[in-house]
């Protein structure tokens, strides 16, 4: 059989050499009343050619950023991916290995992760990074678990301008441990600082805020730093579009405790939402409490440089129910992709790409505001996306359909569903993949659809 290199003759030989009577006899410990004797009701097996045909047929039923001009961001971002990211990450010595428990035969994975940690640390301005987590929302939820358990406080404050998906995941995790959650309201699309006064208390473990926020706006955290440190509240900054960090550092790293989020933007396909790449960076005094793997540099017996998983005593396979988190592995292969991407574009390339995102989005959003009936309700500093309000009586559903007919895809999230005061609205996102002609088409389409 294709994937099973044991022949019928092998089976006979193996049984004979081991004095076993039959393969069936190996299953005798299963009670016969529950033994599954019939066939599983699965489709007839496909050969390679049929399988390829089938997969291509399914894939062809999707619209993609190749078939349509796509202006969707919010949680996953489309950027150009240099071809060597695919070439190098599809080396099977990387992707067919497991967690590097045996460092002597895993230096490739370990050194790649060490560089991933280094890149993320430099990008966020923190002291350390772990080896990655599942995604941006679970990274924020892990920060919540970590900071509430290490402080023994049962309260956390969220910015209401977190993306609703991040907020929902945090709330799912919080309710399991009876962690009380409060939200700070927003004013004109960003945090209403005055609302923080009575919500920050001695019992608050952490404050979680997102940059850029759900509306694409870059929050100014400066007025919060003293308020937080007065009450010993840890500050967690969630970033879902860390491409931003190639051009801007909109917070003071000295005043932030954890920067975590989603790094899919660095060389990983959107691929219908997964797998993504959670990242988790922070201040050194927190390092012994963090979730997930971390790789350290050390030496071997001969004094040669070597890499190894370290601070393992926090982890589930050693500490069991007393572990700092139940996280077992990371998203190593996607961390590798991000490392290859960041190595390839490099310092100067990342700065250029991030700046180009600003150029394109500011050009496009200015035109949307000036030339179409759409409104941009909040005009504050933004990176590559922003909230667009749909003029009445038009609806988001109608926009989706009509723009689709003009070969344009926009987000399925009607922000008015999460923030009723906004009415019909959505977030529009731009990146270096867009050309002027696509922006021209978008403007024309918006004008026609809303005429």
């Amino acid at each position: 059989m294709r994937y099973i290199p044991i022949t019928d003759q092998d089976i006979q030989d193996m049984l004979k050499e081991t004095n076993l009577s039959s393969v069936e006899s190996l299953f005798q410990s299963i009670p016969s009343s529950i033994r599954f004797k019939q066939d599983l009701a699965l489709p007839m097996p496909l050969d390679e050619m049929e399988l390829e045909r089938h997969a291509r047929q399914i894939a062809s039923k999707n619209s993609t950023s190749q078939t349509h001009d796509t202006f969707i961001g919010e949680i996953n971002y489309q950027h150009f991916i240099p071809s060597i990211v695919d070439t190098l990450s599809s080396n099977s010595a990387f992707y067919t290995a497991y967690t590097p428990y045996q460092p002597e035969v895993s230096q490739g994975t370990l050194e790649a992760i060490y560089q991933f940690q280094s890149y993320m640390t430099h990008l966020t301005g923190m002291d350390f990074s772990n080896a990655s987590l599942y995604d941006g929302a679970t990274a924020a939820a892990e920060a919540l678990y970590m900071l509430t358990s290490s402080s023994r406080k049962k309260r956390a404050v969220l910015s209401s301008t977190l993306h609703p998906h991040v907020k929902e995941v945090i709330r799912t995790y919080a309710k399991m441990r009876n962690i009380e959650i409060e939200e700070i309201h927003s004013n004109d699309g960003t945090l209403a600082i005055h609302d923080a006064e009575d919500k920050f208390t001695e019992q608050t473990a952490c404050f979680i805020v997102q940059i850029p926020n759900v509306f694409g706006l870059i929050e100014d955290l400066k007025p919060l730093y003293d308020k937080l440190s007065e009450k010993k509240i840890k500050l967690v900054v969630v970033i879902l579009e860390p491409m931003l960090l190639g051009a801007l550092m909109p917070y003071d790293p000295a005043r932030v405790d954890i920067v975590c989020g989603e790094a899919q933007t660095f060389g990983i396909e959107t691929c219908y939402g997964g797998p993504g790449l959670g990242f988790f960076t922070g201040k050194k005094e927190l390092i012994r409490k963090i979730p997930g793997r971390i790789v350290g540099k050390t030496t071997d017996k001969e004094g040669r440089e070597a890499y190894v998983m370290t601070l393992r005593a926090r982890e589930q396979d050693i500490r069991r129910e007393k572990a700092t988190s139940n996280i077992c592995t990371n998203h190593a292969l996607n961390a590798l992709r991000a490392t290859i991407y960041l190595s390839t574009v490099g310092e100067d390339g990342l700065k250029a790409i991030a700046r180009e995102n600003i150029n394109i989005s500011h050009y496009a959003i200015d035109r949307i505001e000036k030339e179409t009936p759409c409104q941009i309700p909040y005009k504050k500093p933004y990176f590559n996306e922003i909230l667009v309000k749909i003029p009445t009586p038009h609806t988001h559903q109608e926009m989706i359909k009509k723009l689709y007919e003009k070969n344009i895809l926009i987000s399925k999230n009607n922000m008015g569903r999460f923030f009723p005061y906004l009415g019909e609205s959505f977030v529009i996102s731009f990146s270096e993949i867009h050309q002027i002609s696509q922006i021209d088409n978008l403007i024309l389409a918006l004008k026609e659809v809303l005429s």
Partner: protein
Amino acid sequence: MTVKLLIESSKKGNTGIHLPLKSNFPKTDLHQTFPNEWVRETIGLPNVSEPEVVRHFTNLASLNYGVDSGFYPLGSCTMKYNPKINEKLANLEGFTKTHPLQPDFTVQGNLYLMMHFEQLLAEITGMDAFTLLPAAGAHGELTGMMIVKAYFQNKGEAEKRTKILIPESAHGTNPASAASVGFEIVEVKSTNCGGVDVAHLKEVMNDQVAAIMLTNPNTAGVFETDILEVAEIMHQNGSLLYYDGANLNALLGQVRPGDMGFDIVHLNLHKTFSTPHGGGGPGSAPVGVKEYLREYLPVPVIRERNHQITSETDQFNSIGMIRLAGSNFQVIVKAYLYILTMGSDGLKKASSIAVLNANYIKEKLSPFIPAGVPCICMHECVLSAKDFAPYGVQAKDISKRLIDYGFHPPTNYFPLIIPEALMIEPTETESKETMDHFIDAMKKIVQEAKENPSLLLEAPHYTPISRPDEVKAAKDLNVTY
């Protein structure tokens, strides 16, 4: 010997992309658009050329050992062959270039694949409904424990049902996941075959018990023969059974968790269903439940109405959202294609041969290194190296010496109930010849342990580095350049 970090090769003026970028857009002046102190001039990344990047990562890859390099009998991890066609097809642009926030009608292909996959998993496991959202085994366990909690909350018993039973032989993630969502852990003693000690189970059973988490075959590789009795005890007490699917590869098409009495299961697509482990993720761990728990599954859920498949968030008793977006979709595509390739006969054959291979290795090796438990094993066997203590040799030394013979070591020191454990899981994708080579190597190592133990204690000898100093790594922490 390691490879030089790319930052050490960095030179101003080098780049791996075309710079300056070609752009037709007007420049935005950062200093006029943003506060001055936000504008960033340095980051800390290297500037290197494309050929340097290619050589760097190709050299790194050569320091790795994967399933494609050779035999990887890492117990509990099911390191089976990762079919290449599935890699290729999961990379079709029709899949990879879709965005999780595209309107449902524009991703009917993805939604069809997910819905169909849920149905296939339900058939294979004997469960009624699946969610594909959890990103990894531990995330699946967390989701399962959240479902347990939500179920008892809805029944008004959440205050009372605070305990989760876990056998002492269990994977570390089990107690960690249950504790993560606020449950107390009660350890259940194991029999000498690693199974649930039913007498002890009855002792610790009371109305505070919410559920038991079980792996079957258990972590000693042995089928839980008392599973029906365990299920009855749990259900009579109003408690649930959670199935950790780490070892499902032993049972595909032979017996289904749903028929054993399990209420919630998680599967590891990266173990049982052949998707690559990626050097430690991404995996994917769908969670299946019996019909009466369907309403607690996380959102979004996939539904079909009027020939349209939709992804919806309005499910009243759902535990809520558990991740940022979608699922680990690309992993799901690979596992789906694997099942379509194998069919019913193929999956049954996979489990039969996985079990045969493990027993073959056990029978051949146990005269030299005794089996850890006196029972028929399923897809993995555990040997105990405790008899080597007089030579100063431990399980890990045998493992390190195996590397010299060209094999990846088995799992060491797990399960905890077996001293000096060497847990060997060959999987069905290994030939008899490969296993014979492995068996010969093990026999030689046993001989070496007795005659020249330093060969083992100083192993491995031919790798780019020898054993790294782990104490130093933790003490003089260096986790970033």
